[in-house]
């Protein structure tokens, strides 16, 4: 069992730099929590405070109800895998995993049991006699994970462990880590700046920016109902399209005007705009690339959500096509079927799936419709 609790946690460095502000989070046992955000947002600092590698300036951090603020890292029952991991070059895989335990004077038989168990979980059984230089990048990464697993900790802390691997290996290792979480049933806190990694691995994601938690939610909820413009733009690849639109309310009808395009807001979204007195105000309209359609059937069924433009770039990715075009000076992306006939330079008509739009307050950047 390992549940973690962070209440009002702050990090202010002696030079005045405020790295983490009022961080609140309850982590249940066996959760896979991801801290995600751009560089310098405070995600690694928070992880390091949990590890005990940074002092907590204010607030309370508990593991299983026990306050940990002043407990030494070695007494927190945690294991870490960091970005710049390195294996001991002259040791075999077995010795690499056993070394930490040997230093702690763990009995030989127990070390052997733990190493072989970790090797089995990580599918390293057949590589135990190899030296690091005879391993592939992914295998080395697994050995680094093995060194953490043999400690049998309450909590695993991982700080961008895949960032030194190439793109193909990262995808492979993502699957391995996901399996590992299932097999170990451990609580994992994982830091990354890569939103794809965050979406595929986490049971819950903490999106951070400038030391402040923006939203904590499941990957699905973050994608479907982002709480502000930052989260909407950060989660999803290609990122959500944003356009400035003027809201107008006439009786029961609410429209959003983007230049010459007038888009009718559906019943499910319009009440929030009416209640918020957005009539005549400029808001930010967001729509994901997959909700911009070029199929004739969709266009004919959506006469109130049509936009016209010229295709700037056609990008075929095999299973899908990205079309890049401008609407009133804003670059937009549509993710469409590869059978599309549209090509660079073509005049195109698109229909927006208005049920899937997101509307944000231009000043506060908070969601209006989610």
């Amino acid at each position, binding site marked *: 069992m390992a549940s973690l609790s962070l209440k009002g946690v702050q990090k*202010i460095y002696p030079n*005045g730099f405020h790295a983490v502000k009022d961080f609140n989070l309850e982590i249940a046992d066996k959760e896979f929590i991801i801290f995600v955000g751009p560089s310098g947002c405070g995600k690694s600092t928070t992880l390091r405070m949990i590890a005990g590698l940074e002092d907590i300036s204010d607030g309370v951090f508990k593991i299983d109800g026990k306050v940990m603020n002043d407990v030494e*890292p070695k007494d927190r029952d945690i294991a*870490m895998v*960091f*970005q*710049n991991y390195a294996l001991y070059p002259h040791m075999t895989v077995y010795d690499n995993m056993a*070394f930490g335990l040997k*230093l702690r004077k763990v009995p030989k038989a127990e070390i052997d049991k733990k190493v072989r168990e970790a090797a089995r979980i990580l599918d390293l059984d057949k590589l135990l006699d190899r030296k690091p230089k005879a391993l592939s990048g992914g295998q080395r990464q697994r050995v680094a994970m093995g060194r953490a697993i043999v400690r049998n900790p309450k909590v695993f802390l991982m700080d961008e462990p895949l960032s030194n691997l190439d793109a193909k290996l990262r995808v492979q290792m993502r699957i391995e880590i996901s399996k590992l979480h299932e097999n170990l049933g451990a609580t994992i806190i994982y830091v990354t700046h890569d939103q794809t990694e965050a979406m595929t691995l986490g049971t819950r994601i903490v999106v951070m920016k400038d030391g402040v938690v923006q939203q904590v939610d499941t990957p699905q909820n973050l994608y479907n109902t982002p709480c502000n413009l930052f989260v909407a733009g950060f989660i999803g690849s290609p990122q959500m399209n944003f356009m400035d639109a003027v809201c107008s309310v006439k009786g029961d009808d609410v429209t959003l005007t983007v230049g010459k395009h007038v888009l009718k807001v559906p019943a499910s979204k319009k009440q929030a705009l009416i209640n918020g007195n957005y009539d005549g105000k400029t808001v930010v309209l967001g729509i994901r690339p997959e909700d911009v359609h070029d199929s004739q059937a969709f266009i004919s069924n959506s006469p109130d959500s049509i936009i016209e433009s010229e295709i700037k770039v056609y990008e075929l990715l095999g299973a899908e096509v990205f079309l890049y075009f401008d609407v009133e000076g804003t670059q937009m992306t549509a993710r469409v079927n590869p059978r599309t006939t549209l090509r660079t330079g073509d005049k195109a008509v698109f229909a927006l799936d208005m049920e899937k739009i997101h509307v944000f307050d231009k000043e*506060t950047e908070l969601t209006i419709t989610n």
Partner: protein
Amino acid sequence: MKLKKITGISLEVSGAAPEQIEPALTQIHCLCTAYKEKYNRTDFLQGLMTGNIPHYEISDRASRLHIDPEEKRILFLIEGKHFDETSGAILKNLLSCRSKTYIVPLTETLLAVIRPLCQNETFEDMRHIAETIVDTLNTEALIRVRLSYSSVMNTLADIQKAFQETNLALKVGRLFYSEQNIFPYNELGIGRLIYRLPVSLCENFLSEIFGSPIPKTLDPELMATVNRFFLNNLNIAETARQLHMHRNTLIYRLEQIEKQTGLDLRLFDDAMTFKIAMMVINYLKGNK
């Protein structure tokens, strides 16, 4: 005991009279010193770092210890709360592929790593090595460390200079860049400049800006606002947005600072002066 520890040799002294024991102990002590001088690399390297070995002896003693006096090297100085055998063993095994890498314990909280610069390596590669050392000690020894590294040494005689550089880098880093863990000597920026200034000069500079008495610290909320404003390259709209405050509130806060100091932080020159003043306050605070 001491002789056995450093040489592996035990010596039995017979004779019970105190006048016999005293010279025997002196002789053992001399043997230890002579052995250390001749065979103990750690002792030799410690001596080099602290400047306790005369220049003319370096080459001779280095060759006796099989240390190439002319090799290009980098000194990494690692500071931790408490280094025990574990940290030393981890570093030894991590860096052991380079047989000419020396790990030199200096105090309970300081450890030096002297590492040769290999043919294909550049100075830029040293950051990655530094990051690997820090991350490995964090994850394997579960201790928090800070690390500084020197510029390239061309000969063993440069070790003292390299040690001074890394010592300075740790001190400057702790004071001015406390959010970081790695401080390369050649990336200390304006912090190094301020660190060299005499306290009286710093106080004069601060009195010029803030008048008397000089503030020991500034309001943390005000400082957070100013720091964010600087991070956003003096952009009011972006700073206000990020701090979730109205732009007029931000302007009001900046005007408060202008009232106190006469510095309008919206102007580059004034912003720069204020930034330096902040660093000087941190320096004086750290000094005390």
